[in-house]
């Protein structure tokens, strides 16, 4: 159990670092979506199903969609 949790935390931090280093904003947004998704699994392990649901439906789905719409209206690459 603790090994699974550690791997999930590691994957979450790797995704966050990926969001930091990608120059392509669309890839960075997908990486931050992955952070939210893994965080929602960790919330579930922490016995917080309400928060896990909110994070999965709001953090992973709606926020990503809003980011993608905003990127479509501006520029995709960071110069």
């Amino acid at each position, binding site marked *: 159990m603790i090994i699974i949790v550690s791997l999930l935390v590691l994957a979450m931090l790797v995704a966050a670092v990926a969001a930091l280093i990608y120059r392509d904003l669309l890839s960075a947004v997908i990486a931050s979506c992955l952070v939210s998704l893994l965080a929602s699994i960790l919330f579930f392990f922490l016995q*917080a*199903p*309400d928060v*896990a*649901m*909110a994070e999965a*439906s*709001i953090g992973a*789905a*709606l926020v990503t*969609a*809003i980011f993608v*719409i*905003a990127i479509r*209206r501006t520029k995709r690459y960071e110069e």
Partner: protein
Amino acid sequence: MRATVGLILLAVIGVGVGISLLAIPFGAPKTEIGDYYIENAREDTGATNVVTSVVVGYRAFDTLGEVTVLFVAALGLGAVLATAGGKRGRSGVEPASLILSAGNIFLFPLILLFGAYIFTHGHLTPGGGFQGGAVIASAFLLVYLSSPGKRINESGATLTESVSGLVFVAIGLLGLTYGTHYFLANFLPKGTLNTLFSAGIIPVIYCAIGLKVGSELAGVVDNLMEETE
């Protein structure tokens, strides 16, 4: 220069926060109010989900403030994006393929039903108005993806939002006249534990929150997608 300053600042913050984190024990009970809520939530509010009874029972006034923040943010977003006399419409969009559009027609009612399931069962199972509202908003997002030119019925969304906000406040005011005479008092019968029609005003408020959050978030997405010239 900026990066160096940032890294130094980050290192200082990191050491400080790290030291204080090591002092907080993991996995031990911390707050007494939490124990009180767990012990008494069932008798006080009639809801089996303690988180729900905290959000819309004990701290309902706080939730009213939160819903207001969400409303103001949606309003501010509309104000920021609106330009005076601008032409509204969406340019550069292609019709979606048949798989997406036909799949959307079939799935849209089911997603709405799922959202309604989540917020009507907020006092029994995990979930509630905020999660259900987000699910409903994502159903409208699917509509935007499948037919990009389509707009939601803006007056309908505003009406839903205002009526559900009014229901929330009206229930709170009714609590002043009935029962224990304070704002947002639970004046309806609490019913049997673990059945759908229980917990007094909690399911009613959560339904209102669900509809309000759903229409607000759908409106936010709609405002962001709109091209103003």
